[in-house]
């Protein structure tokens, strides 16, 4: 198990569907123990059937997940979380509608034992473009989008396919570091939103019951220039939402590659990490053959 807890940040304006997504993640956690921190006026909007027990500060949820709220002090809430007896596998922060995700990510990065693992910004397909030019909240929304690694276009069923396409083009400008995914009713695949977990190959082999996304595992020869590969995998035409895996670099060191949207990170890998890089993306967008071909140019 890694020493640090990965923290996924879910941002987006009021009504974009953050809470629906959180409930969907809790429903499909599939053995992953999630700790959800909610900052929306202290409301704990967890679907009732998921709740096992409710204390003053904490809700216990089926499958070993928990949920608690935080007020104006996120760091204190995370520090409280670190003191819990049962260690979660992953933290999910549901931002308030006006929060700037990069500020939250920066705060997370300060705390020992936590590491930011992707910012997902929810987009209301019907209203986002109007809201983005609103006199009061327009700049808040464009700042949120600029911070995104993944944008999740929600309520896509309420608009035309042409509108979604137009929205995707628009998002490429406002969220240049992000891949956009399309969702209905906040139903986005867990592995895509939260990442592939500590053991990507195992996660991949567990299959994708919801059938919403596809994945491939790239074999990794010894002596790989990870940075060249990462740049290829984050280029414009490759629709990888997340990728994670381990390789041996040109100096013979075992390294971890981590991609969220169009950002990547290469770090020292844990000992004996299994070689290979798992890439996932949304069905319909994801082209495994193209990824293999592109990757082979770097391998």
């Amino acid at each position, binding site marked *: 198990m890694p020493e640090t807890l990965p923290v996924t940040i879910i941002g987006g*304006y*009021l*009504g974009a569907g953050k809470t629906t997504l959180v409930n969907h993640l809790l429903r499909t956690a599939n053995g992953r123990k999630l700790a959800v921190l909610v900052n*929306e*006026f*202290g*409301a704990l909007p967890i679907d009732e059937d998921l709740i096992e027990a409710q204390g003053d500060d904490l809700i216990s949820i089926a499958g070993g997940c928990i949920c608690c*709220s935080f*007020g*104006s*002090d*996120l*760091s*204190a809430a995370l*520090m409280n979380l670190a003191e819990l007896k049962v260690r979660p596998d992953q933290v999910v922060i549901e931002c*308030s*509608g*006006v929060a*700037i995700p990069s*500020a*939250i990510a*920066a*705060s997370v*990065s*300060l*705390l*020992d034992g936590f590491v930011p693992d992707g910012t997902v910004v929810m987009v209301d397909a019907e209203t986002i473009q109007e809201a983005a030019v609103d006199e*009061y*909240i327009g*700049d*808040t929304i464009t700042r949120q989008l600029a911070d995104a690694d993944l944008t999740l276009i929600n309520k896509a069923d309420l608009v035309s396919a042409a509108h979604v396409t137009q929205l995707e083009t628009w998002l490429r400008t406002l969220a240049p570091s992000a891949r956009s995914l399309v969702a209905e009713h906040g139903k986005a695949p867990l592995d895509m939103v939260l990442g592939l977990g500590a053991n990507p190959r195992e996660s991949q082999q567990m299959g994708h019951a919801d059938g919403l996304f596809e994945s491939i595992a790239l074999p990794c020869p010894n002596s790989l220039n990870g940075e060249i590969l990462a740049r290829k995998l984050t280029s414009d035409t490759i629709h990888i939402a997340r990728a994670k895996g381990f390789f041996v670099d040109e100096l013979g060191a075992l390294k971890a590659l981590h991609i969220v949207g169009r950002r990547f990170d290469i770090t020292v890998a844990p000992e004996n990490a299994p070689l290979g890089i798992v890439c996932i993306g949304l069905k319909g967008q994801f082209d495994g053959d193209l990824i293999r071909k592109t990757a082979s140019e770097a391998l």
Partner: protein
Amino acid sequence: MKTTVFSAKKIVTMNPQKPEASHVAIREGRILAVGSLEEIATWGDYELDERFADKVLFPGLVEGHAHTMEGTLWRYVYCGYFDRMDPNGKTWKGNKSIEDVLASLSAAEALLEDPDAPLTGWQLDPIYLDNKPITRAQLDSVSATRPIGVMNASGHILYVNTKALELAGLMKSGVNHPGISLGNDGMPMGELKGPDAMTPVGEHVGLNRSMTDSDERGLRDFARLCVRTGVTTVTDLAARLEPDGVETMLRVTGEPNFPACVVPLRFFLGLPPKELIPEVARLKKLTTDRLSLGRIKVVADGSIQGFSARMRWPGYHNSAPNGLWYISPEQMQEIYELALAEGIQVHTHTNGDQATQLAIEKLELALKKVPSNDHRFVLQHCQLADRAQFKKMAALKMSVNLFANHHFYWGDEHYRLTVGPDRALRMNATRTALDCGVPMTIHSDAPVTPLGPLFTAWCAVNRLTASGRTQGEHEKITVDEALWAVTMGAAHTLHMDGLIGSIEVGKRADFAVLESDPREAEPEKLKDVEVWGTIQGGRVFAAADA
């Protein structure tokens, strides 16, 4: 029923029916009669108390925006630039240089017996010290072995030494946070901006996580400051009001010698609006003579000097990006509508003029859905409002509490850096507010600036900045207007004007006991009017004994 009659050199009533009197009668903690002894004697037997024969009785002063945590802060080392009086009445000399600050800290450090105990300071304001943050290396010179933390006057920045960073696990390279500046060696310099940067270190330097809640001793100490400044009713403007806190406040304020009425406002975070309003309605029923509950504080934006206030065009003078919302427009309106329906008063912190505009527009929409003839919603700070906004506030029957003290302490900074000359001149536009017919008070925001309504009145009358410039001549108000603002004006904003704010039959017997009549003070000497103490609910409190 016992009646006590106080005679005084003069009684200034703030009641136009009888502006001055020689005697006031008190029964059951309330004002029975005001006038001559003959007039009062018509009520029957009384006991005459002549100890104030050479004093002026003035309506008890009302501070409409303060935080009781000031009482707690005085247990830490005072590091401020200006001389400041503590709850014991001792005036601490201002620290005029970094060397002074380090000397104050060292003197306190020498008194600590436990070698691991943290050393905590407060009220440091580098703006006055060549605008350079204090560094961990400088604080290490006070002690390299015990954790040290010094809070900025704003409360939103913390300066710490190396030991404190080590304890928090932040004494390392690679720290990447906009609130933490790094030195040439790649290590944190010791300056931590914003709650998320402060919290991980705060607990190691003696600042607990719920610092805004005043504890028992802090509450008593704060009340002693009230006695020394003539204050008989004081707000605690952003209280969490959790069950333990409410119980503590009820118990401490209920002590026989607790000398003030405290008005804590429930901070809006922590409960969704649909639960917040019923909770505050429940709290309202717990109100006692000395603890007035049942109001909500909403925070719309941040601060101007922190560049987190929401500004309209042309934004910040130094081109900083616009500030931050702490509530979404939709949620603001939801709180307003629910509160109007329940008859709960809402005070909204708006510093920037865009935040002010949003609050005005949202209240207008809410009032269309839930009409209310006397909601008394208040904008707090409202520092940059222009005439059009004040006119709109008047039309909507809103009130305002302007930050007159801020103008003195940071006016130069606003002129030079944050908003530029045009808007700096109109900041805290007391004249315009009154001319537009907006009921108005003025405040200290203690501990941000010192509690003292007569000083606050002086700030609004003279509009001097710390460097001695008059900033915004046209926004000055008269001494009488300023004194009205810190009595009846503040009472109005708390919806307590039927109970406090003037010396008038039926009202609570709350007086500031002064050495002279502030209405007769030279405008530039208004802050120097001496306070003997207070009478609160008919009980006498001498500053000398507080």
